[in-house]
């Protein structure tokens, strides 16, 4: 090949972003390439993660045993997320990790549901998603490999304690050298590329590739191309208050979100506790008020929703909060990190740097962030609360892409998917319908199925799903089986 392979990679920061990156690079970089992690105090892992099923694929690539991860990270299972209080005080819906219903007569299920609903009782859309139904009932079972079984429609994610998760990642990254250190100075060359990082104790770190996993982007932000695209108008939470509360007797395998006057509350079940997050806007709610809402004490984290214009510039690449920050309202924690690491590996640079690979990386990561952001913004657009926090957020104009997506769904239930979507069609349908966005028309082709036949199929399906969910063990019992 032209250009020499990377000789050394320095990961500054650490935490979940730094260690996911280190563990993955340790797998793919040739043994001769040195990988170092300099752990800064502010990047230390805090709080809990509510993750998508895709993270389990990442563990598979790392050879990271799931039982070990769950044990080390106080993990529980996640079949989806429940959202409460969005379109009214009695509103509540679950977005489950299995597509609702079945493809009847070649037409997407939600059209059949919309049609049945016009005629009368069809239940909630989520009643046709096994993951959602089981989640509400507090039940869990792993997916079946047998495609004829309704259990094959399931998939699941994990709830993980961040600190424990970092410990699990660290244990698989044997060849990675790690040490604590604080960044004193970022040295740029004449072209604005990071040349070295000087630590507080005087050590000078040089590398072919610097990976910035600090919470505030100390390296990438020091380069001339480290501009930040602000998203705080549409996504108003710039503070997260974290606290652990006592474990409930029967925690559901769901992340639970609830609107409050100040913003929203998130509850993530861990083995021995519930990790609770309050997200709020600092100009409307003080940190002390936030602590009071959580019962007196909490760790406060500052956030700034948005992303870098370019996450990768010359020899410095940002992953995690240094690259993008999205308030954790989709239950897709660690997803941006995972896609950043995956794309870095697919576009691995040479020691001399690969500007075209960086441009492609930036295009892909920008698209990925923007599409996930759209789903979070949708949760504000669709909210009906009239508190100042909520009504102010609703006044922000959604992106062209989201406005189009919403208009298409409202018109005739069409789900528009762009390049680099994190969330598949079924996830968007679950969110849109759950948030009360209902199409004016359903697909005319659904009318081919005689109404009585369609109703019978829907009723049968709902019964089958409920029965399958009730046959599963409780979430608590399922966790006991995975010590």
């Amino acid at each position, binding site marked *: 090949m032209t250009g020499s392979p990377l000789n050394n990679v320095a990961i500054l920061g650490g935490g979940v972003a730094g260690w996911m990156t280190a563990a993955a690079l340790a797998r793919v970089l*040739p043994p001769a390439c040195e990988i170092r992690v300099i752990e800064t105090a502010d990047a230390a892992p805090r709080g809990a993660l509510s993750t998508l099923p895709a993270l389990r694929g990442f563990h598979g690539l790392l050879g990271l045993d799931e039982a070990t991860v769950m044990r080390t990270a106080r993990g529980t299972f996640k079949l989806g997320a429940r959202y409460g209080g969005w379109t009214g005080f009695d509103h509540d819906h679950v977005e489950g990790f299995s597509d609702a219903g079945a493809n009847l007569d070649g037409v997407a299920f939600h059209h059949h549901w919309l049609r049945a609903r016009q005629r009368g009782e069809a239940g909630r859309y989520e009643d046709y998603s096994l993951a959602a139904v089981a989640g509400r009932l507090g039940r869990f079972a792993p997916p079946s490999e047998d495609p004829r079984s309704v259990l094959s429609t399931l998939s699941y994610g994990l709830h993980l304690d961040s600190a424990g998760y970092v410990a699990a990642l660290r244990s698989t990254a044997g060849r990675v050298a790690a040490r604590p250190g604080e960044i004193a100075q970022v040295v740029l060359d004449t072209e604005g590329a990071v040349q070295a990082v000087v630590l507080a104790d005087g050590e000078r770190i040089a590398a072919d590739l610097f990976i910035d996993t600090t919470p505030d982007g100390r390296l990438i932000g020091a380069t001339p191309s480290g501009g930040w695209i602000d998203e705080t108008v549409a996504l108003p939470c710039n503070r997260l208050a974290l606290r652990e509360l006592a474990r409930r007797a029967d925690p559901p395998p769901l992340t639970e979100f609830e609107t409050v006057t100040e913003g929203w509350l998130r509850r993530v079940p861990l083995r021995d506790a519930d990790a609770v997050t309050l997200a709020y806007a600092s100009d409307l709610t003080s940190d002390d008020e936030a602590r009071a809402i959580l019962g007196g004490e909490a760790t406060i984290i500052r956030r700034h929703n948005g992303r870098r214009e370019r996450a990768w510039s010359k020899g410095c690449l940002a992953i995690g909060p240094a690259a993008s920050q999205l308030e954790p309202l989709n239950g897709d924690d660690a997803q941006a990190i995972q896609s950043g690491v995956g794309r870095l590996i697919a576009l691995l640079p040479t020691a001399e740097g690969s500007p075209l690979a960086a441009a492609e990386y930036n295009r892909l990561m920008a698209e990925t962030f923007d599409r996930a952001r759209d789903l979070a913004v949708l949760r504000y657009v669709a909210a009906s609360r009239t508190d100042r926090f909520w009504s102010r957020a609703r006044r922000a104009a959604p992106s062209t892409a989201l406005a189009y997506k919403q208009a*298409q769904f409202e018109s005739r239930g069409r789900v*528009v998917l762009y390049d680099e979507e994190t969330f598949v069609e079924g996830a968007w349908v679950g969110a849109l319908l759950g948030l009360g966005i209902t199409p004016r*028309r359903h697909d005319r*082709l659904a009318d081919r199925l005689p109404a009585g036949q369609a109703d019978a199929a829907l009723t049968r399906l709902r019964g089958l799903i409920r029965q399958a969910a009730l046959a599963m063990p409780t979430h608590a019992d399922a966790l006991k089986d995975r010590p």
Partner: protein
Amino acid sequence: MTDQTVRNILIVGGGTAGWMTAAALSAKLAGLPIAIRLVESAEIGTVGVGEATVPHIRHFNAALGLDEADFMRKTQATYKLGIEFRGWGKLGDSYIHPFGAYGAAIAGVSFHHHWLRARQGGDDTPLEAYSLPVMAARGGKFAPPSPDLSSVASTYNYAYQFDAGLYAAYLRAYAEARGVVRTEGKVADVALRGDDGFIEAITMEGGERIGADLFIDCSGFRGLLIEQALKTGYEDWTRWLPCDRAAAVPCETVEASTPYTRCTADAAGWRWRIPLQHRVGNGYVYSSQHISDDAAAAALLAGLEGRAQADPRVLRFVAGHRRKQWSKNCVAVGLASGFLEPLESTSIHLIQVAVTTLLELFPDRTCDQADQDEYNRVMTLEFERIRDFLVLHYHANQRTGEAFWDDRRNLPIPDSLAYKMDLFHDRGVVVKYKDGFFLEPSWLAVYLGQNIVPRAYDPVSGSVPDAVLAQRLKAIRDSIAEATRAMPAHDDWIARFCAARSGATAQAVTA
């Protein structure tokens, strides 16, 4: 609320586009109270350029429930494993763009990076040795892919080469059996509604006035409804794809039929060769700026392998698409919607995408603007991404000293294509999009087939030791060579499975 459902559809124009639309609508709308009518005139010839197809046609046929052997017999069809491109990089070059991937990923890294690495290490095995469909095509062999996904014999797909006129006739019988009413005659007039400019009705030369809720314009290049009546405008891509004419002529078969289409670069464009059971279809797609009609026809005739069965027929077109392929209550399908030269056999595919997308967005009588917008977004994207792929064939040439080819190499290309080419050249990255008809193996075939070789390969491929890599490469080559040997000759398979009776014409299908 008044009932706004579509109750009748009028398709204007038969041909491949008209009858594919009629067949698909009659199958997918069956059970709904919707009447489908098609008007066409036997006096107006059909173009039928798209005689070679891509594998998606099999989904289309399967959705209609067509019997493969019967369909092949009635359309004089042969199998197609890919397209051979002759003389596109340099004079004398030949590569096949196959329907299938090369090799298999090793250590999570796409195969071509390993191939590039071996090549830089002195291994000069051509990429095509790692493609079963190419090796089978070169050997004139065919068998359907194995359903066993662990077998190398499952690593390809196939399409057909058929007589488009017979295919239209076949689908006509299918559609008529499902209630589509055909009316013979020419359209004399198109009437628009005063309030919103929707099409209200057409009047036939015989005086009959036919109204409909939804009109499908399959009238060909002229766009009788979409352009002549609704004046939607045309996005002209001549600056990138300057070929504006084609001369077509069938000739007698004199050799075994190849399981692939051939596209041979020529002085002012390229010539196609499509083997059918009963004849060989030939054509010359050219730029009228660079060659006269007479010279093109002479070049076409001079290149025939067997006796010409007719005089060359000249077709005129402009590369590009209607600004709105769906406007008001009119959807244009086929040549009425736009034209991309059949270099990658996409004409019939574009018809298929249009019909499928129309069904996905099937409107009510108001033809909601949202439906039109989404249809036009999807179709424009489809056209643009095929366009880039076609332009690549022209741009990546080393035929210096020929005016037509020098221009193709030197004139600007779309930015979207330049970006893709830069990334490939830099380190073998094939840019991927969600919507894009041609996937990584296709781009690889053309890039490498036309001598665009990356400067560098994926460094992760270095994690596989040299000796292990050499062994893996050999194992893949050997299994492909063996699987190829085991396949029957293309003509033998046709004779066994789907031979048309000699001299037979298309028979109506009984459905």
